[in-house]
C-alpha cells in the first residue's frame, strides 16, 4: 500500500507500523467513577469493520509521526490521512 503522508507525501506502507483502531486515542478518564470498566473496554473491545475504518499508523522508518488513516479494509483504498496529533487535539485531548 501507499500511504499519502500529510508532510512527506506518498510513502510505502513498509515504512510504517500499524497499531489498529484509532479509538486508541480516546483514552478514558482515570478518575471516572467507572474507570475500571471504561479502561477494560478501551483495552479489550474493538470493532472489526469490513469497510471504512480509522486506524493508527506509525511512520517508524520515517519521521516518527503517528497518523490516522481512513482506510477501506475490503479494498485498501485510503481516503484520508491525518496527523494523529491533530486528530487527538480535535477530539479534545490536551495534556
Amino acid at each position, binding site marked *: 500500500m501507499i500511504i499519502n503522508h500529510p508532510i512527506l507525501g506518498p510513502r510505502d506502507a513498509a515504512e510504517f507500523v500499524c497499531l489498529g483502531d484509532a479509538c486508541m486515542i480516546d483514552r478514558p478518564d482515570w478518575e471516572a467513577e467507572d474507570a475500571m470498566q471504561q479502561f477494560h473496554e478501551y483495552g479489550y473491545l474493538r470493532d472489526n469493520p469490513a469497510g471504512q475504518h480509522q486506524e493508527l499508523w506509525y511512520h517508524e522508518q520515517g519521521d516518527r509521526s503517528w497518523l490516522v488513516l481512513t482506510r477501506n479494509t475490503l479494498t485498501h483504498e485510503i481516503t484520508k490521512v491525518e496527523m494523529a496529533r491533530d486528530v487527538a487535539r480535535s477530539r479534545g485531548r490536551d*495534556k
Partner: protein
Amino acid sequence: MSQSNRINGGLIDRSQTWDFTFNGKKMQGHPGDTLASALIANGQKLVGRSFKYHRPRGIFTAGSEEPNALVQLRAGAHQEPNTRATVAELFDGLTATSQNHRGPLEYDFMAVTDFLSPFLSAGFYYKTFMWPKAFWEKIYEPIIRSSAGLGSLSMKEDPDSYDKGFLHCDLLVIGAGPSGLSAALTAARSGARVILADEDFRPGGRLNSETLEVDGMSGSDWAAHTVAELSAMDNVRLMTRTTVYGAYDHGTYGALEKCTDHLASSGGKPRQILWRIYSKRAVLAAGATERPIAFGNNDRPGVMMASAVRTYVNRFGATPGQQVAVFTNNDDGWRTAKDLADKGVEVNAVIDTRNQPPVIEIPGARYHRDAKVRDTIGRKGIKAITLADDQVIPVDCLAVSGGWNPNVHLTCHQRGRPEWRDDINAFVPGGVLPVGMTVAGAANGQLSLASALQEGHDQAAAQLKDIGIKVAKAKLPQAEDEARESVAFWHVKESDKRAWVDLQNDVTVKDVKLANHEGFRSVELLKRYTTMGMATDQGKTSNISGLAILAEEAGKTIPEVGTTIFRPPYTPVPMGALGGRARGKDFRPYRLTPSHKWAEANGGSFVTVGNWMRAEWYTRGNEKGWRDSVDREVQMTRNSVGICDVTTLGKIDVQGKDAAAFLNKVYANGFAKLDVGKVRYGIMLREDGICYDDGTTARMSENHYVMTTTTANAVLVFRRMEFARQCLWPNMDVHLISTTDGWAQFAVAGPNARNLLRKVVDDEHDMSNEAFPFMACGEVTICGGMPARLFRISFSGELAYEIAVPARYGNSMMSVLNEAGAEFDACPYGTEALGVMRIEKGHAAGNELNGQTTAHNLGMGRMVSQKKECIGNVLSQRPELVRDDAIKLMGFKPVNPETKLIAGSHFINKGAEANMDNDQGWMTSVAYSPILGHSIGLGFIKSGDTRKGEIVRAVSPLHGTEMEVEICSAHFIDPEGERLRA
C-alpha cells in the same frame, strides 16, 4: 541426426552453433533458441514423465504456460529443478536432464503406475490411505512423495546471488506483444516515464510467431523497429526476461527479472532481480493462451498446441513433425496448417469440429469437417490418430487448437472476477480491476492484430490523460483483422480412452466428472480434489477446459461455475529471489557494539541479542569452557572491578518543559519530584496493568532527562512513548530522540570501581561518596577534557558506575578503562557474568518481565502510584491481579547444594502430585553462583513472600527431573545494599 527437424527461416542466428546435452546426449542449437525449440530441432520428442502416472510426455506449448516439458537445468549446486524448457534460453554448453523417472527416461520403472490408473482416480489418497491412521506419516506419504512429484533439489547451497530493486513510472506496460508495444509507443512519444516489461527475451509476443504484417513489414520486423525506437528514448525502461507476476495495492507490481539465466555463468552478477514497481497507471497487455481440446490419449509426445507449432516453425525454424495434422474448433487453427504448408512441411489432415467449408485451402491436406480426433497411437511419440469415424491417419505431430483464453490473471489479484463472453467463448477481465489498471489487446478479448494495436494505443492514451499527460499525435500502426471465428468445444465425447485436461497434474475428463459426481461441485473444490490447476503452470492450459467440462456435467453455464481465484505469482518465483540478499549472516541486519573490535581482540565470544552482537564472555589463558570464564569474571568483578559494554540498552533523550509530567505518565512510579543530578529506577506498565519494561531515568537538568530501556524493548518503548506524546497528551511540550546509537556506555562495577574511574575522570570532578552518591548522575570530562556522562547505578549489586561517551570513542574507551584497571586486576565481563550477578542480586530481567507478570508479582506493587494518571495503573488494580496469594518473585536454592537447578521447572508442594492443579509457580532464571558455590534461581511462587524457608519440589517433566528447593530471599548477595552505597 543433428537438427533433423531444422527448417528455413526463423529468428535464430545460424552463424553460430552451440552444443548442449539432454540426458547426456549431445545436441546442437543456435542463439535465439529456447531449450524446447532446440530439442524439437534435434527431433527429441520425449522429454519427461508425468507427475502421477509417469506417462511419457513431450513439449506441449512454446511459452510459460508449459505443463509438460519440465527439466532439470544445469548440474551440481547450480541444478534447477522444474525448469520449463519452453522458456529456458539456450546457451553454449547447457546441460539438461529429464525428471520424475526411475531408470532411463525411455524405460521408466515407475510407469507401472499408469497400468494401475483405474485405482488412482481423483482423490485416491483420501480414499485409500485412511487406515491405519499411523501409517500415513511413516509409510504412505513417503512412498507417494517419492513416486509422484517433479524434480529434485541439489541439496547444496545456492551459489548465485539475487537482488531486490525498486522502480517508479507513470505507465507500466505489462507485455510487449502488439497491444503492449502500441501502448508503450503512445506513452513514450508523449513523454511519459514508461516501463515496458515482457517475460520473453525477444519482445514482440505473438508477432514473432505469426506471419502477419504491420505497416507493410513482417510483424517481427515491426516489433524490432518499435523496440529500437523505444530503447533509444530516455523516458523508457525496456525490461525483457521480466515477468510481472503480481498486482498489489495502489499501483504496486511485483516483477522478476532473469538477468543471467541465459548465460553459462552469472559471472558474479545477480542471477535474478525481484523488482517492486510503483506505477501511477498500468496497461495489462498480457496476451492470451491457447487451450487444448481433450480427447483419448491426447497427452502423447507430439500432440501440441497449434499456436506453439506455429511458433516453432515461424520463430525458431524448427518443425515439431514431418507429417502433421491439425485438430481445431476455430479459424485460428487453420493458420498453423497454412504456415506449415508454406514452409514445405507436409500437412496431411485438417480436422475441424465445425461443419463448414475450409477456412483456407491447404495444399496436400485432406479436410475432415464436422470431425473429431477420438484417440492417438504411439506410446513414446505419436504415430497415428483415430477419428471419431474410426479413420486412422498416420502423423508424427498433431496440432490442437481449442480457442484462446485471455490472460486475465493479474486483473484478479485484487478481487477482480472475470466475465464470460459468449462471442469469443472465453473469460475476459471483469469486476473491480486493481487500482490504475486497464487491459488492452488479447488479454481483454481483442483477439485480432488490428484491434490489439488499436486498443493498446487507446488504453495508453486514456491512462495518460487521467494523470494529466498530453498525448502526442502519431499515426497508428496498421494491420488487417484476421479471421477469428470459433465455437465452444471442450472434449470429444466419443473417446473411450483417458482424455487429459490437466497434463501437469494428470487430471482427466473422467476425474472432473467423478469430482462432480462425488459432490465437489464448486470449482474451488474441484481444484483441490483433483489438483487440477495446481503446480508450476497453475492450470494455464487446463483451468477453463476443466470448468467447462464441470459446467457441462453439472448442467450449468460456464459463467455460473466461474473460475478459481487467480493469485500471485503468475509464474513461479524462486525462493532465492524472494530472499534476495537476506540469507546467511545477512538474513537480518546485525548491530555491533562500540567495543566490538576490542572484544574480538581480547577473547570475546559473541551472542546475538535482538539484532545486537554482544560479548558473552572473554576467554583467558587456558580456560576450557564458558563456565571457567564466567565464574572468573564474576569473582574478579566482585573482588575488585569489572567492565561491561552496556551500550545496547535503549537510550531515549526526553526534553521539554513538560518532560517531568510526561515521564510521570509513562512510568508507573513517580518521577515529577526527581532532583536534578539524580537517577531513579522506573517501571512501565502496559495499559492492561502488566509490567512492560524497566530501566533508569536520569535528570540531567531542569527539562532534560535521559531514559534507559531494556535492550529488547528499546524500539517498542520509544514507539509507545511517541504514541503517548502525539495521541494521548498532544499538547505537552516534550520531545524525544533515540540516542541508543549515539552514546557508548560502560558499566564499571566492583569495590575498586571508584578507584579505577578516578584515574579516567578529570580531577576537577569530585567523585567522593558524599559528592557523588548512589543514584547520582552528571556531566563530566574525562581523559583531559572529553565530555562524558557519569551515572552511579548498579545492576550487579556492587559499587558501580555507568559511563557514557560519544559512540565513536567507544572502542578506545574500552581500552582506556581496561588499561587504567590493570593495577586493580580489572577484567572485562560479558552478558553471562552480567546475568549471574543480576540473579545473585535478585534483579528482574526479561525472564521475569515476560509479559505475564505484574509489579505486584515482582514485589514492587507499591511502586505503582494510584495518585496520578499513568499508563496501566487503573487496570493494574483488577482483583485478579492483586490477589493476596498471587505469585511472588523469590529466590530458590537447592536443598542438596550439588544439584543444578533447571529454569522452567514448576513448583509443587511436598507430597502433592505433580500436575497443573497443584502448580505453585515456576523457576524463571538459574545460574551457578561462584560466590555462593552452588546453583541459585529466581522464580515466581504463590504467596512467596510468606513462605521463606519452606521446602518445595521443582519439577520439570520436560527434562524428567525433580529436586527439592528452599524458598529464600531473591537477594542472595548484599540484601541490605551496603555495597552499592559504599
